[in-house]
């Protein structure tokens, strides 16, 4: 069996790691724009109900010393935040009426 990517308590979220564990905002935003609403909704529906539990789990670690599997879980939550806008507000991946405008996060803290 492959090495688990997430803490054992969150093994049900493993299938989402490959596509939705992303390192930076530009990658997450590109994923949002290249996904269908069905894909985004499915990710949201899977992760949102586990989010509060995930936060409580992650709170056990100092932020600057997260084990790798915990950091992956945190990255899923970063993606969840960005995908909440299409799901909760826009009902489409992109922000309406924004034309070709670009606005990218160039510097962001790690983790």
């Amino acid at each position, binding site marked *: 069996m492959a090495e688990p990517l997430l803490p054992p308590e969150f093994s049900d979220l493993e299938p989402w790691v490959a596509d939705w564990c992303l390192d930076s905002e530009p990658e997450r935003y590109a994923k949002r724009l290249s996904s269908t609403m069905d894909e985004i909704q499915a990710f949201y529906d899977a992760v949102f109900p586990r989010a509060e539990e995930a936060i409580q789990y992650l709170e056990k670690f100092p932020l600057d010393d997260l084990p790798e599997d915990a950091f992956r879980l945190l990255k899923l939550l970063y993606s969840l935040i960005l995908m909440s806008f299409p799901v*909760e507000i826009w009902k489409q991946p992109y922000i309406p009426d924004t034309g070709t405008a670009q606005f990218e996060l160039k510097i962001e803290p790690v983790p």
Partner: protein
Amino acid sequence: MTESPKVPRQAARQHPKPPEGTWTEHYPELGTAPVSYENSISPEFFALEREAIFKRAWLNVGRVEQLRRKGGFFTKELAVAKTSLIVVRGMDDRIRAFHNVCRHRGNKLVWTDHPAREISGTCRQFACKYHGWTYELDGRCSFILQEGEFFGIDKADYGLVPVHCEVWKGFIFVNLAQEPSQTLSEFLGPMITAIDYPFEKLTQRYYYRGDIRSNWKVFLDAFQEFYHPPILHGHQNPVMRQADYKEKGFYTSHFQIDGPHRVGSTTGGAGGKLVPEFYNPMEQLMRSGLFGPWDPSEIVTDELPPGLNPGKKKNWGLDSFQIFPNFAIVFWETGWYLTYHYWPVAHDRLLFEANAYFTPPRSVRERLAQQLGIATIKEYALEDCGTLEATQMGLESRAVTTFPLGDQEFMCRHLNKVVGTWVDDYQRKQKEG
């Protein structure tokens, strides 16, 4: 006498205006007439702004935390002045700025891979990629390859060209004038220099940038009035809150100007204080949203830092300080701040920068609240970006040439006025020689 705009009684009670009846008439030099935006669609006017404003005013180019160590540097592209700067912390810990140009043949001195791209790093000296001329961190030229081949050359005469550089509260400002007419402190004036905020504690930084097709003032104006959010951004709120906004609009609690600078204070985003139905599910989960965390950071105490909430308003939520010409600092009640920079590139184009600064998160929960806060900035800013490109197109048609500004657009009227004053002043001095 012009009739003052009528304000609903509840809003008048909650957000009282000066004795003159409106903020605009409290400063009679602003007038109340519709304004022209010819200054935002004319290439000729932009050419004047370059000289009259951007080569005379103090411009913020960054913060000292970007130069933590001796030898720390960053480059700053200033398209508006057709130059690039090197900003560097010297071995003597002093921060200096230089034009990023080699004295030998004019090559751009510090860059990597792409000559138009900004870079940062740490170094002991700057060496030109072209012929190896080398400069110390204080700008002195210290090496000329095959020096004996040159004619009567003295390295002492070939230091980097300095730019006036001063620091206020960790914000690094430059001034491109030969001799600035004011020190930085004089330029900032009493309203801005009264601010004594613990900036040094907010080191968790997020930095956005965008290339936008609109005039810098047209764009800036959307970020200095709170009249548009209930409409342009209203649908980002749950339906119940949208209805409330559309009915009541939004009122700024206090406006103030000091020289070319201005501030507007509002009740802020009211994060978490309203009924749950006013928030999206993610906002409720993360206790954050428009904009930023709902829970106070460690810098928040019973007393606001000096200089904030200059109108001494109850239910204070934020101050939006607009520092002329193109720099804004927005302070939020939960203890974090945003800066905006609007860098003109052409009469119809700007580089927009937004920086969010938080205290370093003490836990994953705080980290996520900050993350949602900065995510909302993008959702809102992109709506502004799209709309302001459309506004630029509308203005350029010249189908309409004057535009009415309401009292809530007080700060837009002031910027328009100040830009005109600086350009007039420049032209007058040019004529006088």
